[in-house]
Each structure stands twice: as structure tokens, then as C-alpha cells.
């Protein structure tokens, strides 16, 4: 039985967060309306984003380019 998106996300979070420019990994809505793993990449690191897989264990991965999150 395939892993739930939650299990898959938790298992791969450390590896994704270790990639250059990755600021956040969460679960959001994918392009087809289904839940997807959302990887937020810092603006200026778009090239590094190309190495983020489009799919992990059958779950869609969406890359979002964003700014650094700061304590407000």
C-alpha cells in the first residue's frame, strides 16, 4: 500500500530542506486540486529548484518561489 502524503512528506523533509535555497516544505494544494508536497525555494535559487523532484513516491511536488520568512 502506498504511503500517505503525510508520511512521505515527513520522511523526505530533512533531505528536501538540505537542498540549496529550500526554505520550507509543507502540504498544500497541487495543480489538479489534490494535496501536494509544496517546496518553497528562495528567490534567486530558481536554478537549484530544478533539482527538486516533480514527484515523490507517487505524490506530486510543487515548487513555489518565495522570499525568506522573517520573524515579524
Amino acid at each position, binding site marked *: 500500500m502506498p504511503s500517505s502524503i503525510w508520511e512521505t512528506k515527513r520522511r523526505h523533509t530533512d533531505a528536501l530542506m538540505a537542498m540549496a535555497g529550500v526554505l520550507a516544505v509543507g502540504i*498544500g494544494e497541487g495543480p489538479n486540486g489534490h494535496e501536494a508536497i509544496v517546496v518553497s525555494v528562495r528567490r534567486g535559487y530558481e536554478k537549484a529548484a530544478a533539482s527538486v523532484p516533480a514527484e515523490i513516491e507517487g505524490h506530486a511536488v510543487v515548487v513555489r518561489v518565495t522570499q525568506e520568512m*522573517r520573524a515579524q
Partner: protein
Amino acid sequence: MSIGHYAITAGTLGCLVRRGDQRLILSNNHVLANSNDASLGDAVYQPGPYDGGGSADRIATLEDFVPIQFSEQQADCPTAMGVANILNGMAALLGSRSRLKAVRPQQEDNLVDAALARPVADTDVMDEILDIGQTQGVADGTLGMAVQKSGRTTGHTRGEILQVDVTVDVGYGGDRVARFADQLVAGAMSQGGDSGSAVLDEGKNLVGLLFAGSDDATVINRIQNVFQLLGVSR
């Protein structure tokens, strides 16, 4: 509602919570406890210092906070610091302008940026949140949920939860970064000074505690983690 530890700029008073019979002010560690650099009993001003608050405006004292674990903390190991000093000395002799710094990697993820302050007088504080009113309960933040907050800088704003179960690195100024897990991310609905705002659903149920963001995102602690780690209830 502007509030802040005497040594910070200003943040937002989130809401009142209860520990036993005591009503306490809930906001962020970086608002009430100066990002760990505070002592219990320190003065909290309303408004915060940036908004003109001074010693005559002491509304509360720091009661408790959950320490923030920063990703790299200054090393406290004499050996590591000694080795770094020796290598920096050699680098200087060789003409290098780069320096090594001994750091202690922090592996544990944070769940909250949260703190409590005890009002100097219970009659000085109100249960109602400005522009929103009385909280009705507590709810789980879910994808697509419409949320609202009332903050010191941008006032009453609305947003939508776009991501859940988020692991995120948050900058705290200088080179300090802290990693948080199990966060909610909404669209843009806050700016600097809104930290500490309570985040509620449309039914005025408490969902989270706002603490960080960017031009297009807002990062929110789950209220369940806040309540559990501080040992408080609504």
C-alpha cells in the same frame, strides 16, 4: 494592540489565556521575551517601546516562555572555541580575512515562538480581541480555511491557510535562523509588528499564533502546540 518586552521594538498582544485562575497575555517569545534574551519578571510595555512605551507603560511582567532553538548556536565547548581561535590566528598570519566560528548545530525543530506575560493588574486587560471580539473556542487549522487576525501594524486582515504541516526556516535578524515544524502557512496577511497576533477562523475559534512571514506568506504556530507547551487554556 501594540505590546513588547522593554528591550524590543513592538509586537502584538495576541489574546488572553488562562493558567489555573490566572489570566495571562499570550504573544510570541520574540515579542515578550526578546528571543530568549530575557529574565522572568522583566517589564512588558503597552504600547511597545517602538510605539513610545516606557517604564510608565508597564502593563505586565514576563511570566513564561518556550525557548527558541536556533539552528546554529554559539558554541559553549572550550575545545571547539580554542581550535577555532588557533586556526583563526594561523589564517590571520597567512593574510586571510576569513574567520572560523565554533557553533553547536541544533537538531531539534521548534513548534512555537510563544510566551506569556502576567498583567500588573487583571483589570488592565480584556478578553476581547480588537476588531474581532470574544474568542469562541479552539479549532484545527486545515487547508483552505479562511482565517483572520488583528495586529499592531496591519490591523484586522483576512487570509486563507494555503499549507499545513510546514517545516520552515525563519530568520531572526543577523545570522540567526530557527527551524520550525508543524506550522500553518497562510497568504500575505501581516507585516513586521503583527507578530503575536492570535489567528482565528470565521467562527472566532482560535487556530494559531502568528509569528513570521514574508511579502507573500504568513507563518502561524498551531494553537494546540502553543497551549500544550505553555500549559494554558482559553
